[in-house]
């Protein structure tokens, strides 16, 4: 069994991190596109109303305003759902933030199908791809609420554009206070010699469960938490491919262009090994309970274990 410490949405960890940042630094400002409660930006607003800017349902305007605030010396967090941050406002993110390297932290909550009942328009399965192709952009997908809090705080100390991908639903807390979080440095969660599962977001927990199940079948699976998709930690990925000879990627995001694609770009050039991809397969989401959706979309620990065996068989 995987040790967990309760359950919490990653957006809550962001809200906590933001309040902590607000207390420590007066250059932190927060903007929200009318989703202040949902994104947890409200927790900052309550404590620091003078540094909070309500932007209405205007994501494009929010990105530009955040860029202007950043150019005035502030660290600007621009908060909305991932579908709108990365989709609706992509050109503003491209020109006003990425191209100009403005110190804006784009916070996209409600990433992935775990949004659940709200359905396809609100389930963002494309942001990792849309953000990682932008030069100068850092992309972070925390695996639990505690890591989301650390990522929020770390992103403020890093100068430049960053995208934080967060989730709506409660997911198991699997990291501890003392675990390190460094942007661009993936964490090895479990060692293994037969196959490596590289995951981000909620799929890290699923990957650990899959590794546990594989253990019972005498398959030793390594698990890597690739919380930073960009800049990608090439070393840990290449080393895993060299030492285990097979890789599975697991993400709650479209397979096309996502974290797995980023991993395969590294391996295809440096050390090609059989690789399987767990993720959303060229389709939109749909309404439903997140647990049922994970089964329907093939994102469960069982699906990952199956993919691991397939990758192994291709060695």
């Amino acid at each position, binding site marked *: 069994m995987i040790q967990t410490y309760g359950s919490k949405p990653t957006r809550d960890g962001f809200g906590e991190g933001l309040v902590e940042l607000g207390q420590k630094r007066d250059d932190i*400002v927060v903007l929200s596109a009318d989703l202040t409660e949902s994104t947890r930006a409200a927790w900052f607003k309550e404590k620091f109303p*003078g*540094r909070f*800017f309500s*932007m*209405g349902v*205007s994501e*494009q*305007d*929010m*990105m*530009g*305003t*955040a*860029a*202007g*605030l*950043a*150019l*005035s*010396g*502030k660290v*600007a967090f621009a908060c909305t759902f991932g579908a709108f941050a990365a989709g609706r406002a992509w*050109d*503003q993110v*491209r*020109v*006003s933030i990425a*191209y*100009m390297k403005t110190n804006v932290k784009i916070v996209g909550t409600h990433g992935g199908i775990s949004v659940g009942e709200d359905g396809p328009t609100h389930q963002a399965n494309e942001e990792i791809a849309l953000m990682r192709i932008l030069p100068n952009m850092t992309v972070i997908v925390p695996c639990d609420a505690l890591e989301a809090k650390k990522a929020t705080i770390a992103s403020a100390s890093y100068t430049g554009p960053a995208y934080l991908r967060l989730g709506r639903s409660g997911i198991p807390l699997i990291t501890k206070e003392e675990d390190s979080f460094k942007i661009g440095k993936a964490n090895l969660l479990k060692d293994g010699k037969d196959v490596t599962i590289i995951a981000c977001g909620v799929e890290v927990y699923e990957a650990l469960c899959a590794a546990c199940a594989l253990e019972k079948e005498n398959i030793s699976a390594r698990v890597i938490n690739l919380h930073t998709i960009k800049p990608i930690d090439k070393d840990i990925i290449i080393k895993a491919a060299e030492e285990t000879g097979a890789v599975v990627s697991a993400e709650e995001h479209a397979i096309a262009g996502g974290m797995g694609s980023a991993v395969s770009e590294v391996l295809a050039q440096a050390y090609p090994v059989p690789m399987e991809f767990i993720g959303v397969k060229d389709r939109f989401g749909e309404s439903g309970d997140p647990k049922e959706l994970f089964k329907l979309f093939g994102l469960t620990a069982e699906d990952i274990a199956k993919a691991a065996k397939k990758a192994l068989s291709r060695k």
Partner: protein
Amino acid sequence: MTKQPDINELKKISKEIRIEIVKMLNCAGSGHTGGSLSMVELLVGLYFYKFRCEPAKPLCNTRDIFVLSKGHGCPALYAVLAAMNFFSKEELCTLRKLGTRLQGHPQRGLPGVEISSGSLGQGLSIANGFALGARLNNDPKRVYCLMGDGELDEGQVWEAALTSAHYKLDNVCGIIDYNKFQIDGPVADIKGLEPLKLKWQAFGWEVFEINGHSVKEVIEAYDKAERIKGKPSMVLAHTVKGKGVSFFENKNKYHGTVPNKEELERAIKELELQ
């Protein structure tokens, strides 16, 4: 650098800027002639009269901010910045060439250029951000944002217009280079904007409607805008696309094309007589 305005001097500078613009566009071989020539007095009135800046220290804290939202008009901005000594005039002929700081559309990093632009409609939001930042920093700076008329088709402009008014950003002064043409043709035919003054007023702005080629009207509008409190100001400047060269004026062909050698010689001759 508010001082006693010397209208004749500002007119003379405007003429010289126009000559620089046609020269650099001819040299570059591509670029936007009409919309660069229509905004000259709007820039000259700002930089040579109103604006606080230190060309030797382009990022000094006491500067005002100018945001060029219609990025394709950058030849005019480059010519003005060079005339102000933000960088040398020799650099103007590198426009659009490999390795230049004078990119085809402006890129932050060139001294005096505050934002990268070119994808239309983004400047006013950034200007609002600068204005909010100035307010948080207790900084009296003013923020100017120059937009094109075709650019007003972008929805983001109107999102930003709501934001400026909502936050009562009286340190924001918008400027519209209303030259009545966009790439596809006359604004009135492509997507009409009228009644434009009423639109901005309805959005909560104080509007100053002027002849954008009268430096006197331009600087008076900037002065009046500075005295408006509690809401943003818009200088709605009626201009002529291609202004200053008879065979460019109101010729939409010169939206995105540049003078050849023969046209350049004729253009300079005409401008010098003004």
